[in-house]
């Protein structure tokens, strides 16, 4: 493989997580934090960043050590590595950003069971060299972050009438409280999934039609 091919491959691994294999909207993984912490944009962003950090760090380590980990104990080893990063993130957030840490609460610790992370290690890092794994993890993490930010932004605007804590509308605006509650999260996620699938299948249809028409 020459270097141009290599960087092409790396870009491909990076970009696929953003849209084509987006962990939230396409793979529908990691639903628990997606629904739970996206009641405001800043929470979604912080959760996305924390998850990306854990994802990149643990995927890199797994990939570096992939030849040393016997396959019989791989999952256990992955979990140990992930848990280490999660605990470190938990402490760093509490020290650096106590406000955000307070808001996210138990969901930081729950990153450890986020199936996006274990999924990427099982499907990718355990079989690929470190630099590709980091690209893959970064792409997936950013994809996850963008999804959370989208959900958080829409829910905060509708549910609290603000964005990143800044009030957008006057006193006349009655916030849709349901949007910051769990049902609002389910509703919005459902609508977004419908929208994304509609776009995806629409594109497939036009492609098919183009092929048929020559």
């Amino acid at each position, binding site marked *: 493989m020459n270097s141009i091919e290599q960087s092409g491959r790396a870009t491909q691994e990076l970009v696929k997580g953003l849209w084509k294999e987006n962990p939230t909207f396409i793979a529908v993984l990691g639903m628990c934090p997606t629904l739970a912490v996206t*009641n405001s944009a800043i929470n979604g962003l912080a959760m996305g960043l924390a998850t990306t950090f854990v994802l990149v760090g643990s995927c890199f380590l797994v990939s570096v050590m992939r030849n*040393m*980990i*016997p396959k*019989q*104990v791989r999952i*256990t*080893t992955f979990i*140990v*590595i992930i*848990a*280490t990063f999660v*605990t*470190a993130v938990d*402490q*760093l957030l*509490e*020290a*650096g950003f*106590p406000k955000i840490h*307070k808001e996210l*609460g*138990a969901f930081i610790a729950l990153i450890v069971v986020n199936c996006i992370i274990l999924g990427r290690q099982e499907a990718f890092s355990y079989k690929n060299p470190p630099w590709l794994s980091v690209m893959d993890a970064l792409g997936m993490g950013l994809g996850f972050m963008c999804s959370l930010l989208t959900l958080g932004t829409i829910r905060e605007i509708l*549910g*609290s009438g603000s964005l990143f804590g800044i009030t957008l509308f006057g006193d006349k605006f009655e916030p849709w*409280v349901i949007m*910051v*509650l769990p049902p609002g999260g389910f509703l919005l996620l459902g609508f977004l999934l419908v929208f994304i699938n509609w776009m995806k299948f629409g594109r497939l249809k036009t492609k098919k039609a183009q092929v048929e028409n020559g």
Partner: protein
Amino acid sequence: MEDKSLQPEIAIDPDEPSSLTLIMTLGVAGFFSGLILVVSYFYTLPVIERNKEQSLQEAIYRVLPGCQKYEALILNSNNELVKPGTVSGGENKSSKRIFLGYNDKGSILGFAIPASEPGFADLITLLYGYEAQGKVIIGFEVLENKETPGLGDKIIKDKNFLANFRALSVEPLIEPAKPGKKNKPNQVETITGATISSKAVIRALQNSMTEWRQAIDGYVQKNQLTYNQNP
């Protein structure tokens, strides 16, 4: 003749690593993750504690309007309030503290008292300002809570609810009242949609008052005497 189909078929992988290898792998992984965690814990702990102390300090100035400086007080074994460091023997780090605030002229303003109570989800930790002579609560702030966003967490931002604590009499006892039905100085209007959370706040104040009242009254009496003798 033996029927071969009855024999258990155990496929033994020739490359199967020994148990020792597996244990070693996990042991090594565990060792390194432990090492990383110890390092991160030691570096973040002082910062985390400083943050908590700082947010507590800021809250003290907010719940005691006009407060310029304060000092911490703890209980000794005779249920008297004393300055930390003056207790013989029975003092430890976990002793509950309350804070005595002074105004710019150096006279006593009131006490800032931390309290906590289980709410709808997990403990609600709060700090309130208590003016001992008038026996009223003059300020209130929730320090930590995990109440439902949008409903239970109104206890930290609902203006009508917070207005209850600007002059809340603690005599004979703090009572909950339905929204809009407050007609006594010792009543707190609960929040529609956050009844459990607002009642938890009231319970926290009741219990904390029961706990500290006697000691505070004793301390104020003692200090009032010295204050009058040396004006």
